């Protein structure tokens, strides 16, 4: 398989004749070209179990995420990947009857320790959801800086600093050029793809060390999807990215490492190209070759 430089052309789906029948495959697999070496483990999950009442959604997952690395979590609908993601920034517990056991260490500290405030956790671990959710009553600028206003007035950065942060975040989200002349207009006046990038900028504005993306391009058109995939890949140098996706090709395009989940269990985790070409577990092979999912 060829390994073109990523994102220079839109990804074509492979013609059927190109598919070997027994080997798993994604449309293209990025050759490992890390810009920087992945760093130490930032977020460490051990023995995580998550429940919705009696429903056991995440079963005994142990997984670590390293600095400067993009990890994709794939799996069929209902496998627990979104639930796992939401456990990382303590969003899972906002749902009634939700329960979590196990340990998640962030910078060496247990996120679920009783004295830990979930709000603080969420200020350091950002999240972008499947559907773009700009705050409709706020302008673009105010949307991006919304995360900065979650602390009391005394602890907020001064106005000039906020302006700088907003510009920086919008540039990182590849949206600055498109909206720099309309920062004070309503955030719902831009297209869906732009709104999602706005949400990414909003999440980045608080300088999180981890960015969680829950199927961020699921509701977007192919062009917007491509733009976002490009920027996700570029964000690796600044943030640890964990992306949940049901699109295997997307996982192959943007991630360094991929984890495969099934029925709440972590089946396999490996460098992306290895998972898609030579997976160790037969279930992984069945999924990535498209035999189910």
């Amino acid at each position: 398989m060829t390994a073109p430089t990523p994102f220079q052309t839109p990804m074509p789906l492979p013609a059927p004749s190109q598919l070997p029948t027994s080997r798993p495959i994604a449309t293209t697999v990025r050759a490992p070209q890390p810009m920087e070496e992945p760093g130490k483990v930032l977020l460490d999950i051990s023995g995580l179990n998550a429940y919705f009442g009696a429903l056991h959604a995440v079963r005994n997952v142990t997984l670590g995420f390293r600095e400067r690395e993009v990890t994709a979590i794939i799996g069929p609908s209902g496998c627990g990947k979104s639930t796992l993601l939401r456990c990382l920034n303590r969003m899972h517990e906002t749902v009634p009857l939700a329960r979590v056991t196990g340990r998640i260490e962030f910078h060496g500290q247990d996120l679920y320790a009783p004295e830990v405030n979930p709000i603080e956790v969420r200020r350091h671990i950002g999240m972008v959801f499947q559907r773009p959710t700009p705050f409709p009553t706020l302008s673009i600028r105010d949307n991006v800086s919304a995360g900065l206003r979650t602390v009391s007035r005394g602890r907020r950065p001064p106005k000039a600093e906020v302006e700088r942060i907003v510009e920086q975040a919008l540039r990182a989200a590849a949206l600055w050029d498109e909206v720099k002349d309309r920062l004070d207009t309503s955030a719902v006046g831009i297209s869906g793809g732009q709104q999602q990038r706005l949400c990414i900028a909003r999440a980045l504005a608080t300088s999180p060390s981890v960015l969680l993306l829950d199927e961020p391009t699921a509701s977007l058109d192919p062009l917007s999807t491509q733009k976002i995939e490009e920027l996700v890949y570029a964000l690796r140098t600044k943030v640890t990215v964990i992306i949940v996706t049901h699109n295997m090709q997307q996982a192959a395009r943007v991630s360094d490492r991929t984890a495969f989940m099934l029925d709440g269990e972590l089946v396999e985790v490996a460098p992306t190209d290895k998972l898609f070409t030579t997976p160790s577990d037969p279930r992984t092979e069945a999924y990535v070759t498209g035999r189910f999912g």
Partner: protein
Amino acid sequence: MSRAAPHMAGAVVGDRIYRWLTTLAALMVPALLLFIGIEVFIAGWPAFRLAGFSFFTTSRWDPVHSVFGAAPAIFGTLVSSAIALLIATPLAVGAAVFLAELAPRWLRQPMSFLVDLLAAIPSVVYGLWGIFVLAPMMRQHIAPFIKETLHLGNLPIFSGPVYGPGMLTAGIILAIMVLPYISAVTREVLMAVPRSQREAALALGATKWEMIRDAVIPGARSGIVGGIVLGLGRALGETMAVTMVIGNTPKISASVFATGYTMASIIANEFNEAVSNEHASALMAVGASLMVITLVVNIIARWLVARVGARAA
């Protein structure tokens, strides 16, 4: 953009305060209801205790001699409301059927708006119109029409002198006032009947009227009755317009042209000039009774309308 370990803190005080404030606001609702009920009952208790059950059955209301029989007021409330419903129901249901089934599309919105506008007119304005337009109309045209042209003057219900203000006049004004409520509820439940029911009836060869009668109305029946009962609830509690056109005399008569009293109007008319503490207490007792009656009626109405929703689900 990496950071040192985040500062972890305890629970947020703001959340608790907010929770308390909204819960407090919500609890004000039952508190207010309870408060109203209790205060009015306590204030009226002396009158209840003095007269016992005969408070409701005695037909003599004579504050000067401290005789308080609420029967005329209760009678008037029931009769005027009954007249109102008799007049309003066919009109409101008919208009609602018209709006839901027969009206051309461009007419629906404006006409619904106009019918609902009837509910926006303040009670005292209805009363004003009642005094200067309807009452004279009753005396000069409507009553003579019924008595002479229709030859119904010999019936006890249409007998006696006609002053203008009276039970029938009050009933007509009440009918106009409750019309929009019955119509709105009926319209909603009719429109909730699924389209498939209508089409099935028409496909079987029913005329438009037969379709309405057999496919649409039966499904909405509970809701329509609920709307009527809702209208009853409003008619029972209506004060100003009735006070202005009912004549305010504490007596029970057979004729609809006679003047009378209702529970609401007796309070409005006499409260500020109450001649004694017993008088005030008796009026409070009337108020408490009125509250109970309207509460029961409203609860029944809501239950009936809710049944339509539950069945449709």
